């Protein structure tokens, strides 16, 4: 009995440790975001100042630019995720359920195109976006982000679909259903939660992207949140507005936490549904 208590205590200690290490920097960001002026430079473990000034500055100082950027990020990240998931679901079906020559080669190629450092494709991508006439529009970013979301979603979904047993598809095939119908009727219900996991990770990646966002947009109206944060400024050159940066990061991280809280049940139940093979 004592052994059991010891074990569960140890377990909870571990849980607490995991949570604390993950959250401490975020906690520190929160207390810093409430500080003003020279308080920023002081080390404190508990909030010693409670000023909402930084939040006000972030949200309203630039005539609503930040809110605009925030909205852009939501639109762009969501569109990117929907687009890549749509392309990836059909592609993964083909890659995992249909036998054809060159399947492995194709998987490898998909992986390979995402192996170039982002910084190196910048110039080529810039030319392309200029050429397509989508420079400084949200389309430029949605387009560019598929370069890293697509290979990832395709690979993960392919792995996932491969693990589903043959039986679930057989009946539909016998009924003469077309592959598109099979995806919609048979796989989507099962995949829905898997889509959530990859979608969430892809969403975060698109939400946090900085380099492309900076390069392919040139007006405050089209920029996204990470670029917006990098443009938060003190009153003078060299001055870094720590309080505001922290306030902004808290603001942009909250929706993601909400997303995870909403979808985390799906993440789990979904992948359990994946285990129907038995």
């Amino acid at each position, binding site marked *: 009995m004592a052994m059991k208590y010891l074990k569960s205590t140890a377990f909870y200690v571990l849980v607490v440790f995991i949570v604390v290490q993950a959250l401490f920097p975020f906690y520190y960001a929160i207390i810093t975001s409430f500080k*003003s*002026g*020279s*308080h920023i*430079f*002081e080390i404190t473990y508990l909030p010693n100042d409670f000023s909402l000034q930084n939040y006000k500055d972030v949200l309203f100082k630039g005539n609503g630019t930040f809110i605009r950027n925030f909205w852009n990020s939501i639109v762009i990240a969501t569109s990117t995720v929907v687009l890549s998931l749509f392309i990836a679901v059909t592609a993964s079906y083909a890659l995992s359920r249909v036998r054809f020559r060159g399947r492995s080669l194709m998987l490898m190629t998909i992986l390979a195109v995402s192996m170039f450092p982002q910084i190196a494709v*910048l*110039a080529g991508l*810039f*030319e392309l976006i*200029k050429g397509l006439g989508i420079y*400084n529009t949200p389309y430029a970013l949605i387009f560019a982000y598929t370069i890293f979301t697509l290979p990832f979603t395709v690979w993960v979904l392919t792995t996932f679909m491969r693990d589903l047993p043959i039986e679930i598809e057989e009946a539909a095939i016998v009924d003469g259903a077309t592959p598109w119908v099979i995806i919609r009727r048979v796989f989507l219900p099962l995949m829905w939660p898997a889509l959530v996991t990859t979608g969430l990770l892809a969403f975060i990646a698109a939400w946090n992207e900085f380099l492309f966002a*900076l*390069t392919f947009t*040139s*007006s*405050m109206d089209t920029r996204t949140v990470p*670029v917006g944060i*990098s*443009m938060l*400024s*003190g*009153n*003078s*050159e*060299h*001055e*870094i507005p720590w309080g505001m940066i922290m306030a902004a990061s808290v603001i942009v991280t909250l929706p993601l936490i909400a997303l995870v809280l909403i979808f985390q049940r799906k993440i789990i139940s979904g992948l359990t549904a994946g285990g129907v093979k038995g």
Partner: protein
Amino acid sequence: MKMKTFITAAVASISLMAVSAVAADLSIVSGSTGKDLEFMTKELAKFTAATGNKVTIVPMPSSTTDQFGQYKLWLAAGNTDIDVYQTDVIWAPQLADQFVDLTATAKDVAKSHFPSIIESQTVNGKLVAIPYFTDAPALYYRKDLLDKYKIAPPKTWDEMAAAAKTVLDGEKSADLQGFVFQGNAYEGLTCDALEWVKSNGGGQIVEADGKISINNPKAAAALDRVKSWIGTISPKGVLAYQEEESRGVWQLGNAVFMRNWPYAFALGNGADSKVKDKFDIVPLPSGGEGGSSAATLGGWNLAVSKYSKNVEEAKKLVMFLASAEVQKANALEASHLPTIESVYDDADVAKNQPVIVKWKAIFQNAVPRPSAPTKVKYNEVSSLFWSAVHDTLSGNGTSADNLATLEAKLTELKGDGWK
């Protein structure tokens, strides 16, 4: 009303060929932040009122490396969306081919600017950018602490080190540092180290004629002197400091001396600053015998893109922003240092911004980084230089060896001449 006619006159006087009355839409890209951005917006409104040209500001992140990479890419792609670029003092020579020659446009006013600044923006006789405002560092010192130990503000680096030591020994505080500067391996270290070397009579890395001068005993001695401070009057962590880290330590009251730009002056006197009214500035110390104070030239300039569809109107815009009137307003409202000498003697400036007047003395000893002679290679030169300095200060090789290696690398980089 009076102000408006005044501005109109100013704009008209700098744009003699204002025949084409067609209004244009112009774009200016700027890494300016906060107050500076507000100031520019206000001035641009005056410009629009006077000329009918609409101007949009494209703001950029304040990180200068981010800006620079971006501008290069835009210019490489012949971006017609941007007409005017706000450029760091070291960029213009690297982008000279992409900017319009302003020599003719500015021939009447060029002489009124500090010659060293105009020189820094001139490449092969072509004026690539016109100065907007300038920046130069000073030595910040704690009046209260120096008074307590009856020490006068130092004139040489050795005096400064001695003073710092006296105060540290006297105060016996674990948190107090003697001298903080920008020791991180980045462009800021090139600025700091150029001052140490130049003030010690060690030249300016690459001279105006392109000769590589850095490998000399005086330069080595200057670096050795700084090396001796690390771990004694300066914390080891100073080797990771940029401007804000130094100011952080300083503004908490934890440093006797600091090398920094003018922006730290106003912030240090902020209501919640621990050093409010306890400090002052003097020109940076000299190296002693035969040396004189040296302050690295910073600041911002305005250049017209050659891909602009409205080059003439864009020229008017930069001439307007660089005019004495705007510079004066910039000094009064945003405490930026004018590049036109006469503005320092202006009565309003003297009355409302006494600190700016103090900086005039510093400009007499301003030294440009070797961006003009080394042209497109400047960034690489600077990187090699700060690496050699950072290595020396971290105890990774002696100053003499590192400078000899640096000379070899620079010679290789130069090839058959800086191009």
